[in-house]
C-alpha cells in the first residue's frame, strides 16, 4: 500500500479552447505522489500549474491521459479532496468558525452540529487562531485568513490536499510562520499533498519531492528528492545541502524559462 501512488497523473495532455485556437497547456505530464507524501510543483509563470490542480481535483477532465486518486480514476470532483488557493476566499457573511465548517455542510457526514464545531475549533487552535472563532474574515490579517483557509481545506479530513500558491501573497515573515504551521498540521492531520509554489525555499522546506515543470505546454522536466535529517526547522534552509538544492532548482527553472540551454 505505502509504495503505491495515492495521486497518480499518467500522461496527461490538456489544451484550452481559446478564441485564437487551442492553447496547449500540459503535454504528457506524469506526476505521482505516494500516500503521506508531499510534492511541491514549481515552474515558470503561466505554464499550467493551476490547471494541474484543477485536473487533480476533478474540476476538469484532461483531453488525454488519466488522473488516479486512491486507485480510482478521477472523472468528477470527490469529497476526499481539500483545496486552498492564493486568495483565501473566505465567505464574508460567515464567522471564521462557520467558514471552516462549510465543507462539513457539503460532504456526507454523521457529525452533529456540536461535533462539527468541535472539529473546526480543534483545527483553528492548531493553527493558532484560538479565540478568533466568532470574528468575521474582514477582521483578520492576511496571514490569519490564510490559516483559516487551510483549516477549511482540512476540516473534512481529506486524504488529498491541493494547495495552489497559498502563501504567495504573504510577506516573508508571515510566510515562514505558515510553513511551520504546515508542518504542525501535517504531524496531526495526515494527508497526501500537492503544493504549487513560486518560492523555491518554500518548496524544499515543505515537500519531500520537488517537481519542476517545463514552460508551456508543461511536462515533467526534473524531479528533486528532498531529505533533511530530523524535524525540519528554518535553520535547515541555511545548510550547504539546502544551498545546493536551491542552486539545482534555480538552474532548472532557468532552463524551463528558456533562458539557458539544458
Amino acid at each position, binding site marked *: 500500500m505505502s509504495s503505491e501512488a495515492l495521486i497518480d497523473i499518467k500522461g496527461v495532455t490538456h489544451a484550452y479552447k481559446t478564441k485564437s485556437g487551442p492553447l496547449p497547456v500540459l503535454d504528457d505530464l506524469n506526476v505521482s505522489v505516494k500516500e503521506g507524501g508531499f510534492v511541491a510543483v514549481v515552474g515558470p509563470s503561466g505554464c499550467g500549474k493551476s490547471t494541474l490542480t484543477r485536473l487533480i481535483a476533478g474540476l476538469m477532465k484532461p483531453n488525454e491521459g488519466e488522473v488516479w486518486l486512491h486507485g480510482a480514476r478521477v472523472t468528477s470532483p470527490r*469529497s476526499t479532496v481539500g*483545496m486552498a488557493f492564493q*486568495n483565501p476566499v473566505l*465567505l464574508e*457573511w460567515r464567522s471564521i468558525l462557520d467558514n471552516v465548517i462549510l465543507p462539513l455542510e*457539503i460532504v456526507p457526514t454523521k457529525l452533529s452540529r456540536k461535533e462539527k464545531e468541535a472539529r473546526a475549533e480543534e483545527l483553528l487552535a492548531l493553527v493558532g487562531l484560538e479565540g478568533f472563532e466568532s470574528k468575521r474574515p474582514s*477582521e483578520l490579517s492576511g496571514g490569519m485568513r490564510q490559516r483559516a483557509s487551510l483549516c477549511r481545506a482540512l476540516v473534512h479530513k481529506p486524504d488529498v490536499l491541493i494547495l495552489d500558491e497559498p502563501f504567495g501573497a504573504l510577506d516573508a515573515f508571515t510566510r515562514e510562520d505558515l510553513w511551520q504551521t504546515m508542518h504542525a498540521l501535517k504531524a496531526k492531520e495526515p494527508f497526501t499533498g500537492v503544493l504549487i509554489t513560486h518560492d523555491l525555499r518554500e518548496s524544499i522546506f515543505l515537500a519531500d519531492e520537488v517537481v519542476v515543470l517545463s514552460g508551456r505546454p508543461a511536462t515533467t522536466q526534473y524531479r528533486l528528492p528532498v531529505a533533511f535529517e530530523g524535524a525540519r526547522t528554518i535553520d535547515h534552509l541555511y545548510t550547504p545541502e539546502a544551498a545546493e538544492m536551491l542552486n539545482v532548482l534555480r538552474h532548472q527553472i532557468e532552463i524551463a524559462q528558456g533562458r539557458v540551454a539544458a
Partner: protein
Amino acid sequence: MIRKIGVPLAAIVIFLILWELLVWANGWPNYKMASPSDLWPAFWQYRELFLIQGWETLWRTVVGLGLAVIVGILLGMVMGFSRTMREALYPLLVGFNAIPKATVVPIIALMFVGQHDLNTILIAFMISFFPIAVSVSIGLSTLEPEYRDILRSLGASNLTIFWKIALPKTLPEFFGALKVSVTLAFIGTNLMEIVSPHGRGLGALFDSGKTNADFPLMFAVLLALAALGIALYYVVVFLERTFAGWAERPEH
C-alpha cells in the same frame, strides 16, 4: 440613536420652515404654490381618503415590487449563469427599459380595461425589475471562480453553490438595486393611478385635486407620496442591515 432619527427629522422640519417662508415672502397664492400650513387642513379634511387611497397605493406598489424581485432574481440568475442567455437577453432588456413608461401606461390600461389593480401592479413591476435583474446577473457573473471551486471540488451541486455562496455574495448589490426599484415602483403605481379614469390610490386623489383646482390637496398628496416612499425605503434599509449587514466594513 438620537443622531440617526433626530438629524433627519430636524432636516425635514427645517425644510418645511424654509418652504413656508418662501411662499410667505413671495406672497404666492395657493394656485401657484401652497405652503405647508395650508396642507394640514387638506390632510385633516380628507384624512379618511388619505388612509384609504394611501393603502391602495402602498399595497399595489409592494405587490408590484415583489413581482419585480421574483422575476428580477430569476432573470438575473439565468443571465448570471449562462453567457448565451446574457448575450441574448441584455439587448432586449435594455431596449425594454429605454421605453418611457408613460407611453406604456395607456397601452396597458387598454389591454386590461377595467382591471385597475392588475394594471397598476403591472406597471409598478415593469418599471422596477430592471435594476434587480442587472444587479443579480452582474453579481453572479463576476463571482471569482475560486469561490465556486471551493464547493465544486467537494462535489456540491450548482443549486448548493447558488444558495451557499452566489446568492449571499450578491445580496449587497441586490439591496442596492432594490433601493432604486422601490422609488421606481412608486412612480409606476402613480402613473397608472393618475392616468386611469375612475382610478384609485393617491394618484387618483391627486387627479381629483387637479380637477377641482384644490391646490393644497395636490401638494398634500405629494407629501404623502414622499412619506410613503421614505417609509418603504427604510424598510429596505432594515432588510439590508438584517441580511447583508456583513457587507458594511467596520469603521476605522
